[in-house]
């Protein structure tokens, strides 16, 4: 199977969907002539031209709103945010308009729009460029939010997102763009709302999303090698819609669960999952559901400190040892 990067996997998804549906248009800052700030869209403008791959000014509220308006008319815009941190200047459009227009119109309108870009800390760019707003999005009925971590997932989920008739917000990660993985040639999609067990295990469930999945997989290897603890790693992939069954099935098997994420703790995704687990399989639990999140402060710049602000494998190992 070919091995390609996460960045290439997303590009392939965009390219294939541009070919598949003439209404798809890729739009954003530097996506066309510059080939993408993070080179995700490299070569697409050259291949598809001005109509299908469109450079926008630095004007998120304007161009995201414009994309939402166009989507109401049946265009299928795939909008790139150079960083998800910049979404806040377009928040009114993304929350009031995209999420609510179907509801407020009694179902007369829908918005088949995708808004994608990196949402991560860990690159020493300070608080304004390190936000992870998946929990904010998931808190908004009408929106869907996915956080793929492997090239395979990124391509399959992106294609489903583009074909979806509701607004889907895709959280990528600049630290993942260069990572490689196996991606089959040819057509495949991964449905939204289906989690993936990235490692099977019997002793404890590490439930996670985004880059924290890789942190958990690394921790699982350490725990297996040094402590004989067999971790199951459940990658949500999609936050909303949420695959509850896979989470609950894992917890019913292992009887212990830790949620690991790079999101902040208060009202983070892990808070929702912890609530779900105690609600739906309290009797299966042998220990409290624990959580590991980013340290609860704005993203710090100082490089060695930021490493400690985000979850890291030894931290997961220590947490597992508390209850294993």
């Amino acid at each position, binding site marked *: 199977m070919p091995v390609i990067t996460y960045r290439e996997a997303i590009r392939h998804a965009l390219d294939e969907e541009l070919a598949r549906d003439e*209404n798809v*248009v890729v739009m954003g800052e530097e996506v066309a002539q510059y080939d993408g700030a993070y080179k995700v869209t490299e070569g697409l403008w050259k291949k598809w031209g001005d*109509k299908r791959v469109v450079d*926008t*000014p630095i*004007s998120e*509220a*304007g*161009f*995201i*709103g*414009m*994309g*939402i*308006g*166009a*989507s*109401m*008319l*049946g*265009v299928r815009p795939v909008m790139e945010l150079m960083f998800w941190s910049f979404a806040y200047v377009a928040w*009114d*459009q993304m929350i*009031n*308009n995209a999420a609510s*227009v*179907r*509801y*407020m*119109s*009694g*179902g*007369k*309108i*829908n918005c*088949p729009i995708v808004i994608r870009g990196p949402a991560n800390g860990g690159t020493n760019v300070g608080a304004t460029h390190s936000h992870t707003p998946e929990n904010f999005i998931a808190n908004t*009925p*009408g929106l*869907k939010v996915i956080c793929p971590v492997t090239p395979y997932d990124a391509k399959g989920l992106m294609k*489903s997102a583009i*074909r*979806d*008739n*509701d607004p889907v917000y895709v959280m990528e990660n600049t630290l993942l763009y260069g990572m490689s993985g196996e991606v089959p040639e040819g057509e495949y999609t991964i*449905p*939204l*709302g*289906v989690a993936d067990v990235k490692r099977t295990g019997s002793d404890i469930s590490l439930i996670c999303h985004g880059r924290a999945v890789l942190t958990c997989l690394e921790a699982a290897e350490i725990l297996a090698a040094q402590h004989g603890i067999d971790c199951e790693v459940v990658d949500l992939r*999609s936050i*909303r*819609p*949420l*695959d*509850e069954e896979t989470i609950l099935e894992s917890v019913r098997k292992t009887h212990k669960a830790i949620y690991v994420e790079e999101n902040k703790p208060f009202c983070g995704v892990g808070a*929702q999952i912890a609530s779900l687990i105690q609600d739906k399989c309290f009797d299966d639990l042998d220990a409290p559901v624990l959580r590991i999140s980013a340290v609860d402060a704005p993203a710090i710049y100082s490089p060695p400190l930021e490493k400690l602000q985000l979850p890291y494998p030894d931290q997961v190992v220590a947490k597992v040892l508390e209850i294993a």
Partner: protein
Amino acid sequence: MNSVAEKPKHVDPTDFAAAAINQALSRERKIKILSDMVRIRRFEEKAGEYYKGKGGQTFMGGFLHRYDGQESIAVGCASLMGPNDHMITAYRDHAHALAVGMGMNECMAELFGRATGCSKGKGGSMHYFAPDKNYWGGHGIVGGQTPLGAGIAYGLKFKGLTGSCMTFMGDGAVNQGAYHEALNLAGLFDLPVIFVIENNGYSMGTSQCRSSAYKNCLAYRADGYDIVWDLINGWDVYEVRAKMQIAVERAHKECRPTVVEINTYRHYGHSVSDAKAKVYRPEDEIERYKQHFDPINLWKNRLVEESVVTESEYETIDNDAKAEAQSSIEFSLASPFPEFEDITKDVYFEVDEFTAAGRTGRHFFND
């Protein structure tokens, strides 16, 4: 008091009745414009009456932003719409809805929160929609609809359709960043959008001179984006149509945007709950506009002068509008409220349509 009355109002001595678009107006269509304006007035009056409640009973929640005094704008603009011309507006949206052909029943029932409302009781006063009539709402956040209007125009152009999107806003919206971003995009991408500033002189309770820094007029700001702009006297249906038609043609033929500022006046407050409506505006100002600048009276008088209608025919139009408004009340009162289960419908297309994409994963988290 810094009121709108202190500012000289735009007056263009041109007789716009002579414009080709108005010369082409049949007697029937002139009367239709009159009756649509009257229907809007009577609808708003009836809505206002029931908004206040009757006999200790309340019928509506939320806000009610009445359009009384501005009718010539929505109706004049709607009268120019062809198959690919669209409309989107802010929260003072009842008039545009009726002007594009939505029924009084569905509009009134929406105010009553009934399942028969145009948005099934889910949108309320500020959120009317009829995409089948090229009407895209009905938006509650000041200025938030302006990028959407640019986007609808973008969609028309993308699909190779010759059309336009009339994007309405109040004079308060011109200070929102989203509007300026929409202007820049419209100019940059050559979008067939017409930004229509319905300038009633007050952004809620703050007069134009207390809320905007500007040169010449609010529309003049478009000059900085190299967008053609114009100023319109909103009391004259002929002028609204003649000047808007130029913008529509610019959209159709040149695929270029326009900004128009239409001077007008609202007879009531920002919303019905605007208790200070008569405090921030001198009472004689309100009376003067009601007496001398009521667009319905002016249009009616014009049509009487032209022998298009008689006073008694006008009476009939008015009585019909009152009866239609009353009947929409009865329709609303007889309509059911949405069911509890309806709260979670119309959130996700894929769930409502029970598609494959709507069946994987949990979409709602209520238990």
